């Protein structure tokens, strides 16, 4: 039997009613192994105005580069109490913020390691289907060989790499339109 996936519809302006029960800004609780990172940013519309009714979700591996998922069959340790999932609505000015750890590298095509990254899904009123993208870590030598970054035109790669604002604090904005438009993926 061949079906096709149901069509997407916007989360609309009242997404908070159904989705904020699972708000998770602390992806990694204290005690979870890894380099601690605060990730902060804004979701910005085509006028550069913060989107106040958006939602950002994050999916990531643990510090060893292992996903808490049955299809990750790597012989690497699972971190107890670490799901690797984050969800936060944007505030009135489009800000979001997560506290987590830098994930380890996970395998990509042909078994070659990918650079450490967070997978990101974006929802908002005015967006009929969610957007998918990734956040990479600044100054990581593995970025130069990452199989996904390589598919991105060189001039736009910087939109996927967070900027270091302070020790342990990274900034990454989601820019929907314009000169610094974030790269979004078809996966």
């Amino acid at each position, binding site marked *: 039997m061949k079906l096709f996936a149901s069509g997407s519809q916007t989360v609309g302006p009242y997404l908070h009613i159904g989705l904020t029960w*699972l708000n998770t800004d602390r992806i990694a609780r204290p005690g979870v192994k890894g380099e601690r990172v605060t990730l902060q940013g804004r979701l910005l519309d*085509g006028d550069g105005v913060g989107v106040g009714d958006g939602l950002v979700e994050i999916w990531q591996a643990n510090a060893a580069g292992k996903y808490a998922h049955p299809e990750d069959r790597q012989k690497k340790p699972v971190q107890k109490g670490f799901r690797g999932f984050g969800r936060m609505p944007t505030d009135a000015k489009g800000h979001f913020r997560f506290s987590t750890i830098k994930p380890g590298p996970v395998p990509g095509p042909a078994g070659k390691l990918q650079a450490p990254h967070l997978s990101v899904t974006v929802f908002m009123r005015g967006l009929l289907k969610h957007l998918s993208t990734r956040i990479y870590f600044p100054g990581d030598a593995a970025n130069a060989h990452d199989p996904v970054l390589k598919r991105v035109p060189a001039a736009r790669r910087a939109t996927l790499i967070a900027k270091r604002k302070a020790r342990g604090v990274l900034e990454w904005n989601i820019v929907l339109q314009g000169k610094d438009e974030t790269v979004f993926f078809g996966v």
Partner: protein
Amino acid sequence: MSPLHGYRKYRPRTQPAYDYPPYASTAKRHPTQPLVIVPQTLSEITGPVFGHADVKPTDNDLTRQHKGEPIGERIIVSGRVLDENGRPVPHTLVEVWQANAAGRYLHKTDQHDAPLDPNFSGAGRTLTDARGRYRFVTVRPGEYPWRNHYNAWRPAHIHFSLFGRAFLTRLVTQMYFPGDPLLPLDPMYMSIADEKARRRLVSQFDLENTVPEHALAYRFDIVLRGRAATPMEHS
């Protein structure tokens, strides 16, 4: 290690365009550059796993969250979550939210001049069972006006959010009701070009699950992306 299986691409015209002028708010909120096509890796074919620690058994009954019963027509909404190969998606999280029977959301930005219901919050969640089935008890949501265009009214709908097995099977959609005259006028519903795909978002009256002397039932099956027939490239 056995090869990893990726997921099929979306069928053309079954998903809405990002830039869809009839829905005015898409204008400043759609990407203007084409999506960059990237390979599916372990990062995309895994995703968060939720379980019974996350959801209470009563979270699927929106009519029992307060002291009294909500105003409106009590309904049962149930169905199956399947993948594109027709296989059930078991133990996956389903989240719903909706307006009350008067067409008003319990939300600070909803200023529609219709009453709130102290006995209705409009949010629920559940996990599908081993056969991919889910069930909610709620009240039929009201239609409500919005400012997209002159005399714009949203058809009655319930918002659905699903995860499936992978981060790439994520789906947020809306369930509509059969015979709603507002559907062909609704830019969100009409944003899906393929008529058959649009109709998939309309629930069906379900006599089999209708409870005598208690509540009408509607059936709403949801299809998430399914595995491709061949293993992922170079996995």
